[in-house]
């Protein structure tokens, strides 16, 4: 359904602040530079927070898809 491909998926459904960014940080920590993490969340705040998180940690958001109440955020590990 998506053209974006991810190396790894993180199911963050039902999690609220600060867990989506904490889990994302921990998941990316175990990945290699250039790999893409797909974060699946149903928390609308994460749509704003995760790109800001990425900006401050030097990683890159390569895409955001919305699928009903679900939001998929694709993060590429840079650092």
């Amino acid at each position, binding site marked *: 359904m998506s053209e974006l491909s991810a190396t790894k998926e993180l199911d963050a459904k039902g999690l*609220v*602040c600060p*867990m989506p960014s904490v889990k994302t*940080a*921990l998941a990316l*920590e175990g990945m290699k530079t250039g790999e893409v993490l797909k974060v699946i969340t149903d928390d609308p705040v994460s749509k704003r927070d995760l790109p800001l*998180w990425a900006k401050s*940690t030097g990683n890159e958001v390569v895409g955001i898809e919305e699928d009903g109440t679900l939001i998929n955020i694709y993060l590429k590990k840079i650092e």
Partner: protein
Amino acid sequence: MTIQKDNAGSVTLVLFSGELDKAMAAFIIATSAASMGMKVNIFFTFWGLNILKKDKARFAGFNIMQRMMNFMNFGTARKLAMTKMNMAGAGPAMLKMMMGQKKVPTLPAFIKMAHEMGVKFYPCEMSMKVMGLTKEDFIDECSEVIGAVSYLSEAKDSNVNLFI
């Protein structure tokens, strides 16, 4: 697992209060900052020391007044009151239930997570001396005991400083 980055800045928190609601606020900020690669130090002082206490700290103290204080002021991360609507412990019990329903981690889970992310916990020497507490009364995640000068030397170079 530490995810600290050299250029991400740092956060220094003073946790003076010993209530569940304020401690939660401190740990939400601490874990968020740690997830952003920031260096985080939490300086626990006075009532805030309760958050670091082990169960046995209820009987700590070297004289009768210290023992009385530690017995009456007892609390651990699992057992703290709230600043409002405490209702003899019914308030915290209900809050924990409500947080559980929303998948918010418990305070002990936040402490463990913060520690694993490299957040440092420093107890205040002076409060410990006054209350007759030793490092053995605190959880193992706790770093060394420090004084106000050590706190200030961290705080003056921090980007975010909060007193909770």
